[in-house]
């Protein structure tokens, strides 16, 4: 397996899909432009149609239709995976997700369920402009019956790597409808392992949650007790980690970074435990501010920690479109400097 070990988030996800098709004959992939040689807009599905031509289907530009079809496949025993080419297009599948796929389990009184996995890349910083750069998962957080997952670029012990493993398990276990949120800039990230992370203490606190899915706690080895808790996920967690490093070395401010891989349902025990220690919490996300992931995290932190939470902030995108021009885009989306500035103001 060693020569096949993935080195990036992209190859890890690709290998997770590959392995799931290999291990489970009920896995079917549906998506636009996912056939070889193209292999999908972001190449996550590259090689899969050549190996599994009967179960990797390219589809018309019909996001709602293919998501609905996946729901029907799942109700009748299959484990479908849908690729929505850009996260922006998930607005087209809302009815299928909210009114159909996530309803069956409870609505039919537990007699059946539709464990569809929907994968999609969110995020900007590629200059794609207002309709191909958004981070929209907040629209799906809190939908009853829907699990929202986001990988983190760590190399686990497993041969397919942690992002791929998270995806593989979601597909194979077929336990509940899942929105799997990827990020365009996350794809090329090198999976952190060995020397990359030797400076850090990394602990998986997932055991504190019901799902048991990875929930990472990161801080610099040998650093003093953290002044502040940073909470982030996906690609923003990479920027938060960069900020954490700079804050320590340039400003002697020490942070602890908490990174869930399950965004919804909200299971925040590891995060709350850190915020209880530091008394300060900043959430960092790439979506727009209002009613976002951070809003719910802070509400829950406030409910659970009361006066122990001394101060809290949210870092998020400005509430406007994501412009195409790089310099304009950078003004709208939160970056490392924004995180550093907010932390310095707060400490």
């Amino acid at each position, binding site marked *: 397996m060693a020569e096949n070990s993935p080195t990036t988030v992209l190859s890890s996800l690709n290998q997770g899909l590959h392995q799931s098709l290999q291990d489970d004959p009920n896995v079917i992939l549906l998506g636009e432009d996912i056939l070889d040689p193209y292999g999908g807009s972001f190449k996550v599905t590259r090689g899969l149609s050549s190996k599994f031509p009967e179960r990797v289907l390219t589809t018309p530009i019909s996001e*709602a239709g293919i*998501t609905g079809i*996946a729901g*029907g496949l799942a109700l009748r025993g299959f484990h479908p995976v849908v690729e929505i080419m850009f996260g922006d297009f998930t607005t087209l599948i809302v009815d299928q997700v909210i009114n*159909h796929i996530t309803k069956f389990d409870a609505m039919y009184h537990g007699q059946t369920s539709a464990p569809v996995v929907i994968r999609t890349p969110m995020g900007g910083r590629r200059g794609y402009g207002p309709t191909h750069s958004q981070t929209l998962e907040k629209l799906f957080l809190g939908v009853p019956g829907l699990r929202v997952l986001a990988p983190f670029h760590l190399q686990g012990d497993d041969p397919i790597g942690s992002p791929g493993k998270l995806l593989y398990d979601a597909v194979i276990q077929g336990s509940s409808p899942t929105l799997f949120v990827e990020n365009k800039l996350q794809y090329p990230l090198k999976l952190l392992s060995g020397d990359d992370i030797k400076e850090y203490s990394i602990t998986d606190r997932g055991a504190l949650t019901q799902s048991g899915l990875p929930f990472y706690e990161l801080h610099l080895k040998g650093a003093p007790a953290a002044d502040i808790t940073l909470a982030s996920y996906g690609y923003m967690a990479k920027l938060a980690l960069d900020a954490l490093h700079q804050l320590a070395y340039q400003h002697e401010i020490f942070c602890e970074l908490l990174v869930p891989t399950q965004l919804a349902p909200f299971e925040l025990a590891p995060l709350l435990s850190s915020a209880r220690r530091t008394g300060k919490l900043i959430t960092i996300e790439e979506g727009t501010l209002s009613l976002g992931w951070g809003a719910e995290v802070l509400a829950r932190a406030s409910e659970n920690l009361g006066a122990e939470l001394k101060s809290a902030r949210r870092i998020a995108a400005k509430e406007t479109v994501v412009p195409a021009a790089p310099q304009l885009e950078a003004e709208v989306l939160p970056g490392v400097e924004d995180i550093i500035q907010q932390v310095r103001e707060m400490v």
Partner: protein
Amino acid sequence: MNRNAELFQKMLTIRSFETLLLEKFSTGIFTGTTHTSLGQEANAVGVLSHIQENDVVVSNHRCHGHFLAYGGDPLALYAELMGKPDGVCGGVGGSQHLHWRNFYSSGLQGGTVAMAAGMAMAEKRKGDKAIVIDFMGDGTLGEGIVYESLNMISLWQLPILIVLENNHIAQTTPAELAIAGDISQRFEAFGIPAARIDSSDILEISPLAEALIGRVRNESRPQALIIDTARLGTHSKGDDTRPGEVVEALWQERDPLTIHGSRLSEGVRSSITIKIEAYIQAAFTRALGKED
């Protein structure tokens, strides 16, 4: 019992169920809403008399007739409508959201067509010759996902019979204010053959449905069946804006129970009626007696 009497009995089961339901609704035993199948009994029975055990049935908000014709238990349906644990879905689903064996209904419209397409894809891949029957209404033609679904149903030659019950009215909106062009052409444009019949006579609907179901099964490909029919009841409980005389004329001309009942002797008709009304009354009473 001969075939004619049997069909009459099946349709009367639906008619009696719905009639008693509406009668009791005002007493407060039932809550929420309901959409009855009054007038469309011949469609449910005419089509579903020909399905096989592994076939899948997808229905919509107006699903009681389909559920009962599929073989669903009137007692469990009454219990569901009463919100009781012994209901089809434990009282969670209510009138519009039923699942039992291979029967699935939902209060949503166009989305169920995509879901049904996925189910047909599943059955095709299993290779066991099972097919999907998907009931939709004329009102559903307004939603875009229907056309995404029809395209893929045809593209992938999915084994599905789409039964479009055109009762010419969507809630209160007459079809002529909502549907442009010809309904059959909407299917044919995607390469899905569409048979159309304007009838409330089960002896016309049933053999046509039987032939189409056989074709879908044997050739593993899609087919549409458009039944021009009549909604004799209100949309849900009391919202009918059609003039009384229009509805009265439909009862005179399009009642499937009258049309088919006339083929039976008065003696046979009345003995079936007594039996079925007692059966439905008993189902209601027993459902009422179930624990909340």
